[in-house]
């Protein structure tokens, strides 16, 4: 069973269903060790101006980017146009057609702008990108993004960086259930149990950044998230007792009702 279980995203075929963020790590060394510990094959990146003078080193310097599937984001964009411009720069810098569309519509929470996310997704799909939009937990919007050609949809469990876990489990489960494309739960996953839960529900994968980067021991936490994602995936594929495609069944004793010597 394990050999056949691959996540297909555009041209990428992934064994690991944990996508590893690269922001906010305490050092380049810790980031490199954390990615290695997680065995992630896809990592996210941001696009920023190069410093013209002085120190140009970034937290990515310890990584051989050629070893990973790169998922650059459009973080920082406030409109569809800005997201598309960042996507063009990302493709030119990385020679990869993958893009995580992220358009902030509300500064305080960094919640995504649904209209701009949809527009940027549609246009970048038309330009031939493999688009993975970061979206809210709105079910209908996820379906529309899938229709628009998104390779996967990435609903946020909670606001970016909040580590609040899954705030609206009902909607996340509905999206997983209804969406015709892979659902990768992104943003706000604070503990491995959060990742495990959504993987049990059938999420195709998770993207974790702050939950690992800001842990007291990021490298060990990366390992913990990886184990949780594997466990959740295995549980989902094994079919949870009491769950059917229609939802939960009724209650029932685990021990046989017959033969009780208490008559």
């Amino acid at each position: 069973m394990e050999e056949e279980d691959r996540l297909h995203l555009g041209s990428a075929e992934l064994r690991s269903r944990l996508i590893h963020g690269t922001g906010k790590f305490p050092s380049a060394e810790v980031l490199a060790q954390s990615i290695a510990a997680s065995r992630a094959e896809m990592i996210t990146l941001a696009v920023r101006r190069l410093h013209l003078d002085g120190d140009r080193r970034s937290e990515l310097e310890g990584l051989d980017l050629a070893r990973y599937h790169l998922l650059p984001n459009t973080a920082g964009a406030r409109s569809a146009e800005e997201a598309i411009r960042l996507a063009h720069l990302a493709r030119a810098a990385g020679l990869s057609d993958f893009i995580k569309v992220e358009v902030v519509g509300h500064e305080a929470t960094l919640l995504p702008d649904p209209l701009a996310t949809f527009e940027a997704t549609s246009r970048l799909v038309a330009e031939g990108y493999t688009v993975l939009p970061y979206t809210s937990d709105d079910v209908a919007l996820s379906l529309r993004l899938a229709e628009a050609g998104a390779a996967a949809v990435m609903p946020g469990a909670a606001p970016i960086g909040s580590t609040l876990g899954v705030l609206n489990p009902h909607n996340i489960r509905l999206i997983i259930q209804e969406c015709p494309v892979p659902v990768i739960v992104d943003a706000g996953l604070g503990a491995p149990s959060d990742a495990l839960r959504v993987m049990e529900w059938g999420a195709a994968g998770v993207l974790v950044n702050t939950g690992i980067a800001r842990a007291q021991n990021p490298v060990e936490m990366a390992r913990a998230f990886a184990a949780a994602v594997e466990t959740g995936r295995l549980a989902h594929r094994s079919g949870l007792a009491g769950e059917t495609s229609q939802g939960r069944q009724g209650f029932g004793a685990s021990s046989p009702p017959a033969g009780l010597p208490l008559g």
Partner: protein
Amino acid sequence: MALGDLDGNTALGAEQLRTRLRASRLYLVTDDLSPLAEVPNLVEAAVAGGADLVQLRRKREPWPELVELARSLQGTCRRGGAIFLVNDHVDLALAAGADGMHLGQGDTAVEEARGRLGPRPLIGLSTHTPEQSLKAQQLPLDYIAAGPVRATPTKPEGIAVGLQQVSAAARVSRVPVVAIGGLDEGVSAIEAGADMVAVVRAVCAAPDPLLAATRLRAEAAGATPWRWISLNGEPRKSPPGEALLELLARLGVEPSGVAVEVDGAIVPRERLATMVVPKGAVIEVVHFVGGG
């Protein structure tokens, strides 16, 4: 500080002053040898000939005479459409209501001068090495001088650093670069990357200062300057004909792993070697950093 002088000419605002600085080509520094009484006529002639900036550099005169002279020169410059600066003395700049001041490496610190002058007056700083030119970019100043280009009796202690220092300054500067030191023509320094040419003897010791200033201004204005561009949101300069790959190389940037956008359009990596930096281009050079 009064914003109008006795003739009723209004001083330029901070923005206008800087706009005019960017369009300047000829910068006159007064000499220390001419009799003080001759300085006003000299400045009058230089401004009439096209000097865009005038710096009063006199070290030995008594304070009241200096203040009086500075006030009078500020008036001359304002009437003639030139910018008036004083050398080193913040107090003199304040007393004369000067448009700005020039500082040497050993003079008052730029931050201190800015603190005392406020935001309007221009501040310039002499730089003699590429390191000084680079370091100056962090300071609240409006131009840097690069030199001495040639050995000069005006500053016998200065070691000539040649036009290389002008080019080195031009490569890193986000503010105009003034070439100074023994220059008696206006072309070579501009072509080496200076925005303007500063002269002392070429005008002050000329038989006809007005004619000398006119010639120098015309030479400097006729030479082909480096182009101002916007690079990652900062003003920078690029020599004419520079290819994008050369621009990246002098910034120490490997083209692999970066993306280059010129005026909103991505430049494919294979075109970097042949595409020349357009005049006034808005260029972005980006790379990947950590992100979620």
